[in-house]
């Protein structure tokens, strides 16, 4: 995710990270405490990940419309 140029690839990496954090939460919920707080937190993380992917893809699509490329290197509008 740190090296990829394509924006959708970066998004996939972000989803993997969120999934791994979720797995950690659920494992702690089972073995550490006995309640379901970890699982509840994981459900919220899934919801937030869905919202984030929607907005991020909207941004990527607008970027593609402006620059005709999905590469993140060429998204240097704000560079002086």
């Amino acid at each position, binding site marked *: 995710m*740190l090296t990829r140029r394509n924006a959708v690839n970066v*998004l*996939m990496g972000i989803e993997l990270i969120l999934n791994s954090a979720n797995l950690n939460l659920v*494992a702690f919920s*089972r073995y550490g405490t006995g309640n379901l707080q970890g699982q509840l937190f994981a459900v919220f993380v899934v919801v937030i990940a869905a919202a984030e992917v*929607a907005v991020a893809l909207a941004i990527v699509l607008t970027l593609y419309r402006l620059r005709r*490329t999905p590469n993140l290197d060429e998204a240097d509008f704000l560079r002086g």
Partner: protein
Amino acid sequence: MSAEAAVFYVFAVITVGAAAVVVLARSLIYSAFALLFAFFGVAGLYVLLGADFLAATQLLIYVGGILVLLLFGVMLTHKLYDLDLKSEVTQFLPASIICVGLFILLAWPIEISFSLPGLGNVRILGALWQTSWATGPGRPAGPTTEEIGRLFMSTYLLPFEAASVLLLVALMGAAMIVRRRKDA
């Protein structure tokens, strides 16, 4: 090796292998389909951990929603032959430094302890091996849907409502960002 351990290893290998393919694959389509397998592996691990509602939610939302959305993004941005690790030599080095550093911090298995003159006793060991994990039978497995539903409606009502507002805002925001402006 018990049956539970064997199933765990199968799902763990599926998940980690698919994640490796997502990160290292040449083409974007390979990454997307490997992400599908990674989500399935994680859902299987959730079931092993006794989180059945979460496994079903994960499959529905991640595979049925997010993956489809990502595939749309891949198809609409149209550069299917994107490969990166060879053409980004200048950024490969900082990224690999970060990854190796993180690995040493978290998972370094061999303990190295020495004493520096200025700092005293220095011990290098990954954080994974230093913490005392709570091993044991854990929470007994059982259906969790009813309890999660009850928790959502009683103790965690506020985050639940906030999450729905967040989803509404994200939906409207995404639609607004993508709409075509009618400026001539």
